[in-house]
């Protein structure tokens, strides 16, 4: 069958995940113990995605070609890494990545990595290229290794209100949409009386992130799919799982999950905030224009679940969803969450990381059944067949975002995100941008 050889729509692999983690920490560098093409493979993905901070300086290829590979690549890796650190004056953190091909012959890196760590004078994190990991899992693994660099043995000061770290924000660029998301997450913590601590990741240097010991609790977003017990063992602090605050109901739920998870009991709901009141009215107004429209959602499972919930509030129907991940829970997570949120969604309308033939088949069936396809497409900048996109307005959300760039605070998450998303949906529906 052709689908065995098709490339799934969400095909980013581990190398990119580590690179994005390095990109999210300004004083980190990323050394590639790989073939020459791998540098471009990862770097090119964000060259046009992040117009604020250039990624070219981040990644250094250890220049291992055929000759070096045969002669023994480890010495080359060591020399180049140390030379890079020397030229830059300092490095806060070094990520070293392998690729499946580089790891295949089974070179023993342990001694080399120890020497690099000693001579470079900064932490070194080696993350294998991996055969199966996608970029979300690799990003989370990089995050876990950075969390290990915090001195969790130091006890946080007792304060009147607790300080919470947020773990698992997918910070992939320095444009104002991601920066604004960070502020929205802080703001949601504050709204229920908790002080925001460190945010993994948010564009902070390693030193800043290492202040995470000051928090008493780690709040975990769905982009950190690794086991909570492991995180608790690393940090010695309780971990509280929360959903993505995407949409007004989700923001409210985030606050509740925070309160329940931290205090252990459900506090009586806080007085309706100005934001809640205003977004309720906003949703009602937007519904008048958007109800009855049809949207295709292409996103990773937590974003897809949040987006479908928001769209259902707006009475926009979502006849097809393309889930771009497996590592964050994929289709299973998506359906479970929607069930939990009380949104009816047929399992067959969600495709988990399909190839193009599967997507086209589903779209074709849908068109036969309903006589039309989509008015709106909510997706990252991912090539889609013209038969699917024709006549639809496209809201670029997620990674990669090559066409939409944000230089003014425009969040997707939190209350601010609700205003912006609803406004973008309305503009798209009217084709006024």
């Amino acid at each position: 069958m052709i689908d065995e050889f098709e490339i799934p729509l969400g095909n980013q692999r581990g190398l990119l995940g580590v690179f994005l983690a390095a990109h999210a920490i300004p004083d980190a560098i990323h050394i590639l113990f790989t073939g020459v093409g791998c540098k471009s493979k990862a770097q090119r993905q964000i060259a046009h995605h992040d117009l604020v901070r250039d990624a070219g300086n981040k990644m250094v290829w250890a220049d291992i070609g055929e000759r070096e590979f045969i002669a023994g690549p480890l010495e080359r890796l060591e020399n180049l890494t140390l030379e890079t650190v020397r030229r830059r004056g300092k490095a806060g953190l070094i990520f070293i990545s392998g690729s499946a091909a580089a790891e295949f012959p089974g070179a023993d890196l342990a001694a080399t990595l120890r020497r690099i760590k000693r001579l470079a004078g900064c932490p070194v994190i080696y993350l294998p290229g991996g055969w199966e990991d996608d970029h979300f899992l690799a990003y989370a693994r990089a995050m876990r290794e950075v969390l290990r660099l915090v001195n969790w043995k130091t006890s946080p000061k007792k304060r009147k209100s607790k300080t919470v770290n947020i773990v698992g924000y997918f910070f992939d660029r320095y444009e104002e949409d991601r920066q604004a998301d960070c502020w929205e997450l802080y703001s949601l913590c504050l709204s229920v009386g908790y002080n925001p601590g460190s945010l993994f990741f948010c564009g902070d240097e390693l030193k800043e992130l290492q202040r995470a010991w000051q928090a008493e609790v780690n709040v975990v977003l769905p982009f950190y799919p690794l086991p909570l017990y492991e995180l608790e063992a690393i940090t010695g602090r309780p971990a509280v799982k929360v959903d993505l605050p995407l949409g007004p109901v989700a923001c409210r739920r985030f606050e509740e999950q925070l309160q329940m998870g931290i205090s252990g009991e459900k506090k009586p709901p806080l007085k309706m905030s100005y934001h809640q009141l205003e977004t309720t009215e906003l949703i009602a107004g937007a519904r008048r224009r958007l109800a009855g429209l049809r949207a295709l959602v292409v996103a990773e499972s937590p974003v897809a679940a949040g987006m479908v919930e928001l769209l259902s509030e707006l009475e926009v129907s979502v006849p097809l969803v393309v889930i771009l991940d497996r590592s964050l829970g994929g289709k299973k997570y998506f359906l479970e969450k929607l069930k939990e949120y009380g949104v009816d969604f047929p399992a067959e309308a969600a495709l988990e990381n399909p190839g193009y033939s599967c997507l086209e088949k589903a779209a074709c069936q849908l068109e036969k059944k309903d006589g039309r396809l989509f008015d709106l497409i909510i997706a990252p900048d991912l090539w889609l067949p013209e038969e699917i996109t024709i006549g639809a307005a496209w809201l670029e959300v997620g990674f990669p975002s090559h066409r939409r760039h944000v230089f003014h605070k425009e969040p997707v998450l939190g209350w601010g995100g609700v205003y912006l998303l609803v406004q973008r949906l309305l503009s798209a529906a009217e084709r006024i941008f």
Partner: protein
Amino acid sequence: MSGNVEKTACGGHKTAAFLNSPAGVDLSQPGCLIEGMCRVLSFVEGNFAVILHSELDCANMIFRDGRAVDPRRFFCTNLSERDLLEKGGAEKLRRALVEVTEYLNPRLIFVLGGCLASLAGEEVGAICSDMKLKAKIVTLSGAAFGKVGQGELLDTFCRLMIEKLRPPKKASTKRLVLLGYPRDDAESQKILKRAGIEVFALGPYSPLYRWEDLEKVKLVALSDGLIFSRTAQGLRQAGWQVVEIPPPIGLRRCEEFYRKLLEFSDTEQKAAEFSRAEKSEAHQAQEPLKGRRLRLAYHLGSRKDYQLEDLVGGGLLELEFFEELGWEVELFFQGAVEEERRREIEKFLRAYGKLRPFTCLPDRLSLARVLREKGIFWVYCNESLREQARAAGAGVIPQGTIRPGFSGVVESCRRLEILVGHDR
């Protein structure tokens, strides 16, 4: 394509072959075979399919965003550790070829072997050799961790495209192909039409079916015989008349370009007769910039997009443009600073007739320091170096500012006036 390409193998070893080519060196950032071919084929129209015989990660070399032509044409054998350790990937590749042929019915299938396949000793050429399919198969295998120069890759691709094509026995000298020239918004077509000459533009990013146009012409003008050495050799061997004329960048080059093209096509009239208005406008556009006497760092070595504009003429084409303005230009090369590299650079500059003193930068971060040390406040470089230039207080003239043709001179001068309009 008219089924003119058959099983061909090339790959990492070609780097060594390139080093023996007349140019001597390829100073562009090297890439891997899959990277380069995916870069080119993502933007090429045509009825073809591409199969990567590699791990799935390599498929991220394919452009699958809104810029790409149609990523549905790309497939991957998705080699896993188990495949390689237990049974090898040959069977998977054969199956992929059959499935892809049935699914897309392409006229041509490119099979690209990756590092992993090479490390495991899989010969894609041999695997595909006994396949009987409707589609023609082109196999390209990058030896494990092979580095391929960007120019070399574009040349290899063009050479593949011309294989088995033949020039017509009889053809008008008033019809010619411009091969490997940066796009000039059809100015050359317009100007040469006045002289009764019909022009087709061809290059690595042309739709595959356009290569068949070569069979209608006898004369081929080539932008750079050093970069396209294999293609030039192939064309000559097959019987085309090939002339090398550098792209029309800058006023002097524009005049030379049209003069040589008219000579090549046996046109007795003078080029000036057909381009008087354009030339005069371009000349006027240059005047305000000629008095500026700027010092400019011309940065090479951070180009990795397989763009003709960056590779043809060794990336030195715009150098003359700035020199025509009377600016003082210093060459900066990014890359190793060792003596061996310096000798390579000298060889490269000599090959392009531009031998002069130059500065080597070990990496992109050194740019700011060297600009400060040399007191240079303007740099012609890739957009991605803006941060480093800013750190030195220098202004950036981004690559791509200088456009070809007479209208390019006008447009480029206007852009430069805006950019260097205020002194630093």
